[in-house]
């Protein structure tokens, strides 16, 4: 029975244009963002330039033709000022001077100066009796290990980004799916279909089926987005995500599922108290507010890890769905604390089901004005659950 209800939620909601559009946009946007970073960052495609060299500069044709990761030079030998003037070459080099038509191209200027400098160093070293091998040894880079007091080693920046993305994404998804849940409840109430439903099934079954169905869709959407993220990162090979960050992904999923169970129930309860879609915005405040508080704690503490508000909030069920991923991605939450926070959240779902279920089954058949909290709680005329 509960599956019949869940299936309807998945099929009707999953088929809706809004859901498909949002999922597709998120998926494409993540890939596009990664690709854009790659192109803006330069990527592997070196820029083509043309260097004109006069007879006097002929000795450096070989070294200058090599190029580097940014520049792919073409050499025109025996060039003169006329070639520069009619745009055949970007720069004219005669062994002693660089001649430009207009302002110098900084990248090309740096490149030629570096090649000339290297050639001069090699010549002077040979004059001083040093061979290529000795010279190589002389310029052997010195490796310095990077140590950070926050323990994050070199992963720290990526971890910071992962923590921020996890917390903000969880906040947004809970808010969006909580609203979907509430809209679904209001739709059933305002269309009066609730009366037909309750003639066959109990409110608890209906609520359970709706949470299950929307939960499956929400997790499905999250997975699609994560796949988009992975594809994006694969396209941009330069960003190495430390394996420690990927290890927090399953934990993020578990936290999201529990957080969804908690918040979807709360949103269902506030949705059941109103009869019209127009009242939805004001009705959702009690469920939305703690989520916003969690979000503000998360955002304001991004620069200061170890903020006590985050530590405390990661154990409180109203804020832990957002703050727990923040701490785990940051890597500053011991395993026992994660287990404790998840256990508290799981137990709270049952408490929320009791509380919200009580409001839900009282309010469902009340039409007209918004049901007051007092009425909903006193619950005298509730349907049997």
């Amino acid at each position, binding site marked *: *029975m509960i599956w*019949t*209800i869940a299936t*309807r939620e998945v099929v*009707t909601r999953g088929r809706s244009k809004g859901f498909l559009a949002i999922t597709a946009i998120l998926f494409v946007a993540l890939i596009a963002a990664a690709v854009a970073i790659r192109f803006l960052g330069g990527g592997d495609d070196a820029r083509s330039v043309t260097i004109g060299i006069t007879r006097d500069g002929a000795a450096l044709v070989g070294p200058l033709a090599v190029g580097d990761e940014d520049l792919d030079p073409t050499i025109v030998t025996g060039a003169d000022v006329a070639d520069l003037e009619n745009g055949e070459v970007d720069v004219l080099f005669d062994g002693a001077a660089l001649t430009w038509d207009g302002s110098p191209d900084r990248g090309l200027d740096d490149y030629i100066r570096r090649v000339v400098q290297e050639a001069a160093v090699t010549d002077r070293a040979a004059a001083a009796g040093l061979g290529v091998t000795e010279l190589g040894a002389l310029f052997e880079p010195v490796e310095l290990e990077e140590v950070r007091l926050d323990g994050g080693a070199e992963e720290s920046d990526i971890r910071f980004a992962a923590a921020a993305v996890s917390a903000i994404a969880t906040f947004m998804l809970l808010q969006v799916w909580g609203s979907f849940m509430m809209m679904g409840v209001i*739709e*059933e109430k305002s*269309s*009066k*279909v*609730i*009366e*037909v*439903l*309750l*003639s*066959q*099934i*109990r409110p608890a079954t209906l609520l359970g089926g709706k949470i299950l169905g929307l939960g499956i869709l929400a997790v499905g959407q999250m997975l699609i987005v994560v796949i988009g993220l992975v594809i994006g990162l694969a396209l941009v090979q330069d960003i190495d995500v430390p394996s420690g960050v990927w290890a927090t992904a399953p934990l993020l999923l578990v936290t999201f599922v529990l957080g969804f169970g908690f918040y979807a129930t709360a949103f269902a309860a506030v949705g059941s108290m109103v009869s019209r879609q127009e009242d939805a915005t004001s009705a959702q405040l009690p469920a939305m507010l703690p989520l916003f508080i969690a979000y503000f704690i998360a955002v304001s503490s991004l620069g200061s890890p170890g903020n006590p508000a985050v530590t405390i909030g990661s154990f409180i069920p109203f804020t832990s769905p957002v703050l727990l991923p923040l701490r785990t991605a940051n890597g500053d939450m011991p395993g026992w604390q994660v287990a404790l926070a998840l256990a508290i959240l799981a137990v709270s779902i049952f408490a929320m089901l009791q509380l919200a279920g009580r409001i839900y089954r009282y309010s469902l*058949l009340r039409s007209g004005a918004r049901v007051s909290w007092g009425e909903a709680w006193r619950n*005298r*005329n*509730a*349907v*049997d659950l």
Partner: protein
Amino acid sequence: MTNGSSSVATDGLVITDIAKRYGSVQAVDGLTLAVPRGALIGFLGPNGAGKTTTMRAVMGMVRLDRGTISWDGTTVDDGTRRRVGYMPQERGLYARMKVKEQVVYFGRLAGLSKSEANARAEHWLDRVGVSDRADSLVQELSGGNQQRVQLAVALVHDPDLLILDEPFAGLDPVAAENMRGIIADRAEAGASVLFSSHQLDLVEDLCEQVVIIAGGRLVATGAISDLRAASPTRLLRVRWAAPVGRWQPLAGTMLRFDGHSAEVELPAGADVQSAIANAVSAGPVTEIAVEPPGLADLFADLVIGTEAAEVPA
């Protein structure tokens, strides 16, 4: 104690002494009624009489202050409710779901298998006359067609008990006739049918039995013909060969007068002979009849009577 009277036939729906108070409003006050299997009973009462509360109570949607509701001798529970087809007063369908998909869904909720639900949905959509709209969204249908879909939803699992709250409201005559036929068929097939309506002419045509309530209490119950016959008032109908100009009946209330014909309600104990004589004396009569009041008049008399009696209480 409650199961003591085992010798009494208890098939069908039996509602015994139910009561429900909402705040200061006593919605239902000790109501008892029965809908045996195969019976088709009209449930009548003015607005606020407690009809919807009673129907919702059968569906388990009202926590009763007292009283019992049983089906075929056992208290109604979740299992029984699977055997009930319910049509709420305000129509309830998912607006953005396709017609057939929706009927199948409710069949599934009532416990039908997928293929069964499909077959039953097709059957009933055809029977209520909207099979050509099976793939339309409900919101694209006219109000009358939505109501047909609502009936298909109530019937998809072949219920033994039909609880229909105002099934005829808003239907055109053709659709009403279609619904009437279906409801009568279900009763003939052995289902118990309880339906409320304000369209008393329809009720009179459709069913033989009625239950009339007012103020949450039973006012009258039984066969319409018996109730009419038992009424102390009579209806005098007369038609003259030529217009009679002004005419004043000797006794009773003039319900209608257009010069050519008249209808007069004669009060209890009125002298019928002199009433007829009085009408004939006005001019040559082509038709004249004295009959029990129609259901509408009977209903008005019964309900107004109880409301007057309620005032001092």
